[in-house]
């Protein structure tokens, strides 16, 4: 029985899993400070890319460029954020 209507208030819900990284394109990651509530899943899981500020909110350690080979980690942080505050973007 289907019990999972779309949740418009907070897109990105439902099942998700890390997508395979695309090695050709530069990958960037960004944090929505509006959504971040300081759960810290990202800086727990991927301390190379994310850190915490003085109040526990997440911040990017660099400019958001994901070093080649770390795309999967960026996706892992994205897919574990309870607030859907992290987005991994691919630039061609």
């Amino acid at each position, binding site marked *: 029985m289907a*019990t999972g209507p779309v949740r418009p208030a907070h897109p990105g819900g439902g099942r998700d899993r890390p997508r395979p990284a695309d090695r050709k394109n530069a990958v960037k990651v960004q944090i929505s400070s509006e959504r971040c509530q300081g759960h810290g899943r990202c800086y727990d899981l991927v301390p190379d890319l994310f850190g915490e500020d003085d109040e526990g909110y997440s911040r990017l350690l660099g400019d958001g460029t994901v070093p080649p080979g770390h795309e999967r980690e960026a996706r892992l942080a994205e897919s*574990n954020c309870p*607030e859907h505050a992290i987005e991994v973007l691919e630039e061609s």
Partner: protein
Amino acid sequence: MAADDRFTEGYRDRREDGPVGTRSEIITGPVSDWATDFSHLEPEWSADPYPIQDDLRQRCPIAYTGRFGGGWLPTRYEDVSAIAYDTERFSSRAIIMSNFRPPRELAPVGGSPPITSDPPFHHDARKLLLPAFTKRAVAKQEPATRAFCHSLIDGFGGQDVVDAATDYAQHIPVRVIADMLGFPPEHGPQFREFVEDLLEGINLPPDDRVARVSRLFDYLLAQVHEHLGQPRADLTTYLINAELYGHRLDPQHVVGTMALLLIAGIDTTWSAIGASLWHLAKIPGDRQRLVAEPGLLPTAAEEFLRAYAPVTMARLVKADMNWHGADMKADDWILLSFPAANRDPAQFDRAGEVVIDREVNRHAAFGLGIHRCLGSHLARMELRTALEAWLERIPEFSLEDPSAVTWSVGQIRGPRALPLRIR
């Protein structure tokens, strides 16, 4: 510095001067139909709430009860998260579903800021506390927590059977929060009574309940006076000196926040540690794997938090409305079950199974939105440290008697008796 006259005798009277709340009839006894008469205080729910929640999610995803003066129980992830985010329609002025509703005038501050606060006050009250509870700040407590866990295990001596709930799990958060608040660690047994009074005594007669809650506030006020006389580097002194909008905090705010930190920090983490050990005692394969692969422990701990989320919150409906098909009235309760959300198959693969290497785990054990558990980093540190120490010292253990395991009653769920055979 002028003497602090905020916490004099008149403080308690001022607390009781304001508008009074409303009481509803206490209704106990077996539930006739969980969809129309649910109660999280009945033994069936305490023993195993998950089949009830799974059934409701299928046939009545927003259940109702006339108990507690009326309330609703959403069991789908999407409804739980929508309510957690919607602070316009749902107030945190009370977060324990009971037979007493505090007066509306108590909003937006509530009795124990910031957990009972609504915007915009909530943000400012929370901001005062955030720096003390960052991952970096709580990491400083880890060595002492680890040493304390080992000392508890040392204390098992040559016993073959120990109670992992009362001999181990419950002591860890008590010690940690007593250190942070600057309360004597030997008062631990009293704290556990306060927790029971506040969170489990929901259906007691009103006078009895008031008397029990007063004991907690008497204790906290005594601690404030201790700290006024002898300030130190702890959260109690910090709160006494803290300022908001250019003034020191109201005495109700200081003591209400102390109550929150003491109560919320204890049986939640105790429950998480106990439920995790219960699982590992029951499922030898998972236990053996974690002993063999200690690096998997943080991932497994997240899965235990998802599957056995200890904390359910409550909200009060602000005004009459039809919400997702439910005819809600002002001051109806919402029992905001993060445990039910965490087992919604629409959100999680194999939602009803415990998968200790679950890689993607967007669980809501610490809530969602502006009320994300302030102590989540502390809780995670305690849970991981407690499990690491236990597995290192006691790699082989099993349930001594599954029928002797008992679970707490109310919104915080975890084992309260957990006899384990450890050799």
